[in-house]
């Protein structure tokens, strides 16, 4: 790396010399010990929402229930993210290992990978891995079995309660919360649902120790993270980077020299304009992300970018709650009207208020997060939005 402010890390993809070595060593430790390690590490969910992983496991472990479930959320659908596919392709055993450690701690006997339908081509490969893995679990005496559940093309199923409904054979509509998954998840059983990357980090923290992990990143954003980098960059791809870098440092490394904006966190994330690159930190204290980093150079119309996102949400909303279903239609129709001169610029203010309502009242994150990308694009590129 040409810039010291940006550090490449190699935890996730580092190959293991001995198969299942980390897993075997970890399951030999006591539950309290492992849980303490993960809580100490400060690991937060890598899917985007950032809930502390150790706490989630602790809550589930405390539930008194005969049957508990571990789910690996591989319904990666956020525009601009593809890291989970890469992790499942390159280090599937680490993902499975993370699930097994979680199962041991919470006392689950069943695990599932919810694999998005778009990644169905991975199925034969993963099933082969799984067969070997399930066999190994038997050998080491861990009563836990993992299966793959295939999605069928619905972004909203990445929302955990929608994912449960989908696995129960229903429409993938998010549920009311509470109850939360650790209390009543799949088939109302206590369920831990973690992102693919989170599970790998959890396992690896048990190997490298929470100290080494904590040494990376900042106090709010411990450790490193896998980034999916696309758009106007000469070197698109997957990179594991230390958390806490500034967008400026990021763009220095990955930009094409003409970077106008970076969309962090996909369509439901934030757009950072060039003038704010220096002051903006990538991490929970700044802009959190599930790893999607889309870079736009000065040839791109931010109106088109926004329109593309709204188009996406209008289709991928489950449609059950009013603010999300109608809100996205109004936003799209509204920006079109302003762009075509049918509404004046002030109408953008009305739409901005609408995003506030959507953020406050939508049933799940899909509708709540629109305010992020909408206001950050409209506020920073107002001149591109108007007729």
């Amino acid at each position, binding site marked *: 790396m040409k810039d010291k402010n940006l550090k490449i890390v190699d935890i996730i993809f580092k190959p293991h010399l001995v198969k299942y070595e980390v897993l075997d060593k970890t399951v030999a430790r006591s539950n309290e010990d492992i849980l303490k390690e993960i809580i100490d590490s400060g690991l937060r969910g890598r899917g985007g929402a950032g809930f502390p992983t150790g706490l989630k496991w602790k809550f589930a472990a405390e539930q008194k229930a005969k049957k508990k479930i571990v789910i690996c959320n591989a319904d990666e659908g956020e525009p601009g993210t593809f890291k989970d596919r890469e992790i499942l392709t390159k280090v599937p055993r680490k993902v499975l290992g993370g699930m097994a450690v979680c199962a041991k701690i919470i006392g689950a006997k069943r695990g599932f990978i919810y694999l998005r339908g778009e990644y169905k081509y991975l199925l034969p490969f993963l099933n082969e891995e799984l067969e070997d893995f399930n066999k190994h679990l038997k050998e080491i005496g861990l009563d836990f079995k993992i299966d793959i559940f*295939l999605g069928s093309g619905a972004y909203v199923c990445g929302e955990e309660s929608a994912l449960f409904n989908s696995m129960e054979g229903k429409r993938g*509509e998010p549920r009311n919360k509470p109850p939360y998954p650790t209390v009543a998840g799949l088939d109302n059983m206590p369920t831990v649902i973690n992102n693919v990357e989170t599970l790998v980090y959890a396992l690896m923290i048990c190997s490298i120790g929470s100290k080494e992990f904590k040494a990376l990143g900042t106090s709010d954003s411990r450790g490193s993270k896998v980034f999916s980098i696309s758009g106007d960059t000469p070197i698109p791809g997957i990179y594991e980077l230390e958390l806490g870098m500034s967008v400026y440092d990021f763009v220095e490394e990955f930009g094409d020299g003409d970077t106008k904006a970076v969309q962090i966190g996909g369509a439901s994330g934030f757009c950072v304009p060039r003038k704010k690159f220096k002051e903006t930190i990538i991490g929970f204290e700044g802009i959190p992300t599930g790893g999607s980093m889309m870079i736009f150079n000065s040839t791109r119309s931010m109106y088109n970018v926004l329109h593309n996102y709204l188009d996406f949400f209008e289709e991928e909303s489950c449609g059950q709650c009013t603010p999300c279903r109608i809100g996205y239609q109004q936003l799209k129709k509204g920006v079109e009207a302003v762009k075509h001169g049918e509404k004046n610029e002030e109408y953008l203010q009305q739409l901005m208020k609408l995003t506030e309502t959507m953020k406050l009242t939508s049933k799940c994150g899909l509708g709540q997060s629109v305010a992020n990308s909408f206001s950050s694009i409209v506020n920073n590129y107002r001149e591109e939005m108007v007729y």
Partner: protein
Amino acid sequence: MTEVQEKVRDLSEKYGRRRENLLPILQGIVEKEHYLTSEAMIQVAKELDISAAEVYGTASFYSFLDTEQRGQYVIRVCKTISCDMKGKNSIIKAIEDVLKIKVGETTQSKMFTLLETNCLGWCHKAPAILINDEPYTNLTPAKIKAILGDYIRNAEGKQKIIGDIQYER
């Protein structure tokens, strides 16, 4: 029992006749038949003892569980921003030229259907498409034309076509 009904029965046998197996059963039908006919959905309802409206309501939620007629090969072109920026429209144009259909349509031979879809997770290798389950990435108009050519030729020889994605362990 018709052939389709038998297939549904076999799938229900394989996965189990419970609501939670609805998606795998529907996926199994789509894999074989390319889309869900009314006949197939009614048979699923019978097997799982749920109403046909519930089967349809659930299927129609998922974009890969088509309830409209589809060809043997369903081409899904990613339309999300990264692919859009990298020339998705030129890919669609190339496909339309070769197959003489527009987005949303199926060729008369019932061999291809052309659809747009949301993010496929190949943004770093944009533009990307799926043909049935196989991803094709870093496409150019020339490349997609060659791929389609392979499909058309191979379909005549009934060979399975593998996508261009390599994976390692």
